[in-house]
């Protein structure tokens, strides 16, 4: 008699070869698990895509100065005098000409019409200063030209252009009482800025009677040490009541609420789906054993052990789960990876992001599938091992 390992291998090979002869049960187990994996990967890819966009937006060596207590650019506000004080504060990197690399900005919300929904959505219209371009990693003009300072002109982030109507270069678009000319489309390394429209900050001030003030000052600093120096200087200044943020930290905090919501909803649902998939697999595996009861009993009568019979059954279930898991991941990847979506973020404006079906997620999805396969296979495996040979041979 040969060892149980060889026996298991022989039985498993026999099982797998007979799969095409009972396609129904196999397909059911596989599709159930594929649906589970697909949903799992789909939900999490949305969360991870959103997170990636938000976290990719901030840079460690850019400091964000906001009014004290404000957790969003939208809620911050200070005068132009205050902005000037910040501009020349220590810790800020200066360019060759000795000018600080600072952009004092306004973060405004306008209404644009979503291309797929056909309804109005809040889009960020950001007024920047010339240094603003260089403060964004990966900034690149993709089409057209940049806006001319002093004119009612704007450039659209690539994500905004894709999601909202009327943002093609050369088009005029009306926000409130002002008509703007779209002069170009820009990229910014897939960050949240690609969801925005950019214009000259002074033009924005006059377009909507916003006075001469700003909402946020962005400054290039010399790493964490530079930021600390800036913070110290501003804290000690009687004319100011501001917070200094690392841009990186600012955007990862902005992502938290939304990703938490997606996960709070998504994970329990995936778990429940997994339980459903386990029942489906159990059914399919019991059916598979019932269909082969005679064959199994005959093999047992020939001297195959019960452990190999159990292991082979378990292997079959795991193999089906693996196939289903890979199928589900493949579908999620093909259908969703890079799928562009937008949602209202905590900045009160639309953030355009791409679903990211990462290798990490795929691995998690397949792992979940394997767990389902194992749990769904273990009871049937026991049953296969326990079935008395004589009864199985007599039945049917």
């Amino acid at each position, binding site marked *: 008699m040969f060892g149980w390992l060889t026996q298991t291998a022989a039985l498993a090979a026999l099982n797998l070869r007979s799969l095409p002869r009972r396609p129904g049960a196999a397909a059911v187990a596989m599709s159930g698990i594929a649906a589970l994996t697909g949903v799992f990967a789909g939900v999490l890819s949305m969360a991870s895509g959103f997170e990636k966009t938000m976290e990719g937006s901030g840079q460690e060596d850019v400091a964000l100065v906001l009014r004290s207590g404000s957790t969003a650019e939208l809620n911050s506000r200070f005068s132009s005098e205050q902005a000037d004080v910040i501009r020349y504060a220590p810790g800020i990197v200066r360019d060759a000409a000795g000018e600080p690399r600072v952009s004092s900005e306004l973060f405004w919300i306008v209404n644009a019409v979503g291309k797929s929904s056909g309804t109005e959505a809040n889009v960020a219209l950001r007024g920047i200063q010339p240094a603003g371009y260089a403060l964004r990693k990966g900034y690149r003009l993709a089409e057209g030209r940049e806006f001319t300072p002093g004119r009612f002109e704007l450039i659209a982030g690539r994500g905004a252009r894709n999601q909202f109507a009327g943002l093609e270069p050369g088009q005029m678009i009306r926000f409130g009482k002002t008509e703007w000319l779209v002069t170009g489309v820009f990229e910014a390394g897939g960050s949240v800025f690609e969801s925005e429209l950019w214009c000259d900050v002074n033009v924005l001030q006059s377009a909507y*009677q916003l006075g001469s003030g700003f909402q946020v000052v962005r400054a290039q600093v010399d790493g964490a040490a530079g930021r600390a120096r800036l913070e110290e200087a501003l804290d000690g200044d009687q004319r100011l009541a501001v917070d200094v943020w690392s841009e990186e930290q600012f955007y990862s905090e902005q992502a938290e609420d939304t990703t938490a919501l997606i996960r709070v909803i998504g994970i329990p649902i995936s778990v429940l789906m997994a339980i459903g998939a386990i029942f489906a697999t159990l059914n399919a595996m019991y059916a598979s054993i019932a269909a082969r009861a005679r064959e199994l009993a005959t093999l047992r009568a020939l001297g195959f052990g019960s452990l190999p019979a159990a292991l082979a059954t378990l292997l079959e279930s795991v193999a089906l789960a693996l196939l289903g898991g890979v199928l589900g991941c493949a579908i999620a990847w093909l259908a969703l990876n890079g799928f562009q979506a937008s949602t209202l973020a905590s900045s009160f404006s639309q953030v355009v992001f791409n679903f990211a079906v990462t290798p990490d997620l795929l691995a998690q999805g397949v792992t979940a599938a394997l767990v389902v396969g194992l749990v769904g296979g273990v009871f049937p495996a026991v049953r296969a091992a326990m079935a008395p040979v004589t009864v199985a041979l007599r039945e049917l």
Partner: protein
Amino acid sequence: MNRFTLIWRNLWRKPIRTVFTMLAVLVVFFLFTVLEGLRIALSLSDVGIEAQERLLTSHKVSLIMMLPAAYQSRIARLPGVAAVSHGTWFGGRYQDNPEFAQYPVVAEEYLALNPEIKLSSAQRQAWLANRGGAIVGRPVASQYGWEVGDRVPLRSSIWTRNNGSNVWEFDIEGIFDDTDAGMNAGVVLFHYDYFDEARAFGKGTVGWYVSKGDGSMPIENLMASIDAEFENSPAETKTNTEAAFAQEYAQQFGNIGLIVTLILSAVVFMILLVTGHTMAQSVRERIHEMGVLKTLGFTSGSIFRLTVLEGLLLILPVGILAMALGRAALAFVSGAMGAMFPAGLHVGTQSVVLGLALMLAVSLGSVLPPVIRALKLDIVALLRTA
């Protein structure tokens, strides 16, 4: 022994299979109900009757821009306007919980315009008498454990007080119910006078106006006439019904709704597959027995009915139980997260009907094809099957 015994015994032909199928159905219709509840809540489509009638006027450029307080008297003077009041987004959160709705309002005006807010007259008097007082919707009060007489701090992400602090404290003077279970259900209301005096900037502005027509003109005309009043002024306005406004806002979360729908479809796909296959399998197993029943004098029609009833019996009771459990779960979640889902999580008749239709589709869709195929065969052929 009667026909039901026959159906019942057939249902439990393979008990393990039946139990697992039922459990899968249970999980799946539970999920279906919960996801429907979430989808409806996220779409804010269920805002109550009052919200269909009330108008909301905001800044034309964007919701975050403030309107002058002086607009109130101009709206009030327009023909067709019965009453007008205002609200402002406070943007506060309690401790580390997510931001929820609080508005500074002019108490008597606002309550008159929002009759669905039910507040006892004692609490109403107490609130009117306390400048720093607030009233709160019951779902929020129960989530955070607030009671009348408590003093609660809210940290605003927008409004700074004159002393530079973002933390505002309010005395809870009343807890109200929203009979519409609409947009007011989970709001904290406090006095605008107190707020306007204490805020460091933005004095003399409000977030939006709420108004109601007197019925003398169609609501569309009224909306147009309000917006016309402020045309070419520094702050132009956009007026809509509260209900439409809520839905536009919900639309902005668009893709999350899409994902919920996607999950729903995957779930439904899974039900169809699992139960459908299992049930069809179970019907195919007894084609020979159908032949036997026919030799005993059973007609095709009665065998058909027995089999279809069995299919329904497998799905419907468990499915209905699952939907009931799903509704209980939704009620539990809305109780525990009153601030996030103040109007509660519900599934309406439409979802229930959809769920029942799905159950019927699954059981009939899987039983009918094999049974019809089997009954098309004559007895001799049925008996010749192994």
